[in-house]
């Protein structure tokens, strides 16, 4: 690509890119996000291309197959969308390629069996826009993901990439840029929720150069993949956001800190950086404005604590990734002790949108104190799992039961954990609470980077707390005493309770120790680590008491406190549980009620999971 030297040349390049993409009368989008790739979407794309070629459509620009970033509906992958009709196929296999080309591409027909089936109405849905999972979302940070080929700069240009940058460079001062971000009310999407505009302003005020811009893509929460999807599916938006930030704070060097476990994100970011450099969108004299900025990728080794800003900056500098006290903020003394702006991937991805649509448009979405949208990775016991973006302030109920379609197998809802491993668990009474930074913190949980794990009645809250404390204890860097020893001791108490060795007074001990760990720890990891246990003690105290006092696990999860039995009335004698049992502990004839031989039973719960008649009882 020849370098673009001005805003006018950028618009010419965009017009050419649009012409190219508009020439495609039929576009087949095959999702190539990590989830779909794992389901085999690369083979699906190959098969469709092959079929197109055989049908004589392959070389024709009117018919075009492209691989895109993640559509978010990972559970149903591989996903294929046929545009412009928006026909949406799920769980597509390479063998389906022929039918898709023959029927949908050529004749415009819809293949019924490949359509998504609504789990509640049981009806097949033909189009993208009619599925609750998508219809109830508002995609802003994810605006281009799934629509464009992340490896193609032209495709990004055709949907408006770098337009905001051109506008900023040509017509705005740094002060105006910062004021615009401040007016938008954008708050950091990495978890802290700090006002982005204020961060930029403070950094610019520090009279030390060089200044740095870092993008935090060290997404370490189990089950979270928001940032990864943006990196993989729309890397140019991240770069554009960083460029605008760099212009505002007068920085000339940026870093993207991305975990090494995200190979596809690294590949696409690297490709995007190379393309942007070649196109003159990174480097010297960007778009003829005299502004210079370049970006380097820094790969993280995968320590959870390196998502913490000061630990991240140490890691970028090549030191051990351990946090430091932040009484002097990193906007003043960050990377290499120089002023540094660190924002998360999603935050940067929102920035170009704000400049393309105006701060007022952004501020109009969401709530007054938490404007805009937020991306969540909705996982756990929910019907539609995947990546969802909703306006701030919607209720938990709307996300879980609206977008998410409700609880798997229509079991009762028990709790949702928001904010990743160190978030809190919120009970049913809080389902109508709005999802925004301040409400969640007030309720003892947090927004975090946007993890949302839904739990049903078969989830033991003590076990959940134990699980997350184990993760956090392992991931603590060990530098400060309360986090290293305190979280470990909390885990010891929880393990004892799960094993049936809980003692009266344990709950109170947890509360005292948890509050000290929160108060005294050095960094955010330790300060938030007691959240899972403190919030479950607060909202599910009776479950703790049942474990300690009655030696019972009401959810039937903690093995040493649970006994499995089969209800003679409900059992139909279908033998499914007997086949699922790994220790052959279930005996009984076909069509006769089964029984569990207790000396062989290991309390794994496999029988209960597979039983369709709710005949497996726990006590």
């Amino acid at each position, binding site marked *: 690509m020849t370098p673009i030297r001005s805003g006018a040349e950028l618009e010419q390049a965009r017009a050419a890119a649009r012409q190219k993409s508009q020439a495609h009368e039929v576009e087949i989008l095959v999702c190539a996000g990590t989830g779909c790739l794992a389901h085999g979407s690369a083979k699906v794309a190959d098969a469709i291309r092959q079929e197109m070629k055989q049908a004589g459509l392959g070389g024709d620009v009117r018919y075009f197959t492209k691989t895109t970033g993640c559509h978010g509906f990972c559970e149903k992958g591989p996903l294929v969308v046929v545009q412009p009709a928006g026909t949406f196929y799920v769980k597509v296999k390479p063998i389906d390629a022929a039918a898709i080309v023959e029927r949908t591409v050529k004749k415009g027909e819809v293949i019924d069996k490949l359509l998504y089936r609504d789990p509640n109405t049981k009806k097949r849905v033909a189009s993208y826009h009619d599925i609750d999972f998508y219809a109830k979302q508002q995609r802003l940070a994810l605006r281009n993901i799934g629509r464009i080929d992340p490896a193609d700069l032209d495709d990004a240009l055709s949907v408006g990439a770098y337009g905001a940058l051109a506008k900023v460079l040509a017509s705005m001062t740094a002060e105006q840029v910062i004021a615009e971000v401040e007016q938008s009310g954008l708050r950091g999407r990495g978890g802290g929720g700090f006002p982005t505009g204020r961060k930029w302003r403070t950094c610019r005020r520090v009279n030390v150069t060089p200044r740095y811009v870092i993008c935090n893509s060290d997404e370490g929460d189990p089950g979270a993949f928001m940032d990864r999807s943006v990196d993989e599916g729309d890397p140019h938006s991240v770069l554009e956001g960083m460029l605008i930030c760099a212009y505002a704070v007068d920085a000339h060097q940026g870093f993207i800190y991305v975990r090494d476990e995200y190979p596809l994100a690294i590949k696409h970011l690297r490709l995007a950086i190379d393309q942007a450099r070649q196109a003159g969108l990174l480097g010297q004299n960007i778009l003829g404005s005299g502004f210079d900025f370049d970006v380097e990728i820094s790969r993280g080794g995968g320590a959870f604590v390196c998502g913490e800003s000061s630990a991240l900056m140490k890691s970028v500098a090549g030191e051990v990734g351990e946090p430091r006290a932040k*009484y002097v903020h990193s906007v003043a003394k960050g990377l290499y002790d120089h002023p540094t702006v660190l924002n998360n991937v999603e935050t940067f991805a929102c920035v170009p949108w704000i400049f393309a649509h105006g701060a007022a448009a952004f501020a109009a979405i969401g709530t007054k104190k938490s404007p805009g949208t937020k991306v969540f990775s909705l996982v756990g016991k929910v019907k539609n799992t995947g990546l969802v973006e909703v306006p701030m302030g919607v209720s938990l109920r709307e996300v879980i039961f609206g977008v998410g379609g409700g609880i798997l197998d229509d079991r009762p809802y028990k709790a949702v954990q928001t904010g990743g491993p160190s978030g809190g668990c919120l009970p049913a009474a809080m389902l109508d609470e709005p999802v925004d930074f301040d409400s969640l913190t007030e309720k003892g949980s947090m927004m975090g980077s946007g993890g949302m794990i839904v739990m049903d009645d078969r989830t033991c809250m003590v076990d959940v707390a134990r699980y997350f404390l184990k993760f956090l204890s392992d991931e603590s860097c060990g530098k400060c005493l309360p986090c290293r*020893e305190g979280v470990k001791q909390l885990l010891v108490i929880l393990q004892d309770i799960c094993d049936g060795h809980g003692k009266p007074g344990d709950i109170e001990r947890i509360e005292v120790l948890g509050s000290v760990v929160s108060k005294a720890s050095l960094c955010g990891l330790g300060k938030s680590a007691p959240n899972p246990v403190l919030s479950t003690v607060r909202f599910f105290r009776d479950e703790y008491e049942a474990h300690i006092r009655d030696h019972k696990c009401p959810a039937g999860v903690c093995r040493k406190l649970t006994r499995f039995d089969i209800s003679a009335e409900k059992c139909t004698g279908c033998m499914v549980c007997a086949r699922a049992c790994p220790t052959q502990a279930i005996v009984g004839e076909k069509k006769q009620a089964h029984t569990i031989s207790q000396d062989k039973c290991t309390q794994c719960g496999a029988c209960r999971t597979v039983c369709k008649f709710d005949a497996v009882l726990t006590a």
Partner: protein
Amino acid sequence: MITFWINGKKVEGHPGEMVLAVAQRHGFEIPAHCHHGGVEPFGSCRLCVVEITHKDWKGWKGQVTSCLYPIEEGLEVTTESAELLQVRKVLADLLLARCPDAPEVQKLAAQYGIAKSSYSEHPDRPLCTLCTLCVRACEAIGASALGTAGRGPARKVGTPFDLPPEACVGCGTCARICPTHAIDCTEDERVRTIWKREFSFVRCDVCGRPTLTEAYRALLSERSGLSVEYFKRCDQCKRDEQAKAFSQIVR
């Protein structure tokens, strides 16, 4: 100078100084297990927490580690309160659970009325509290032979790959600065043995007593630009020599 308040008393400190340093200079007692005036503050034991507020902060109060908090004009520091006491007590309890056999930790815990930890004791009952004073001192000396390895509860202080450290000069500072005497260091007339390495002593050219190790002398000479010769005499003999010279001048 910066003027601020500790427990209602007006105190002064230099710009860039930390609250703990100024407080200690003015005689305030704040427990600080991982702190030593000679090395960089680190903030790992958290015992030195204090409460801070300021008349311009609209009533906002916070807890900070005083070893790392830079002093500010008008800052109001409180070093004792029921809440701080509870934090320190739990921290001392946790430290005792890790190091039940370390007399210094026992002494610290006893100050909070704890004779036996209420938490589960570390099975290895280590003496090391992971304060990392040794690591920071080694860095200050210029050898950087020590470091930390492992994460979370598995963290430990030691030498690279647990091997006798090449960078060690046998100065023994780590063993001396360790508040719980957790580092093995033995010496006789001839050699000091530390971190599984032996270091020969230089002998004073006057009295013949062992002074510093040969490796440490080389490092000091390199760092200071002084010749190795400068370090041939022990401190005592240097003092005697200077006293003699001085008395002759006076006479």
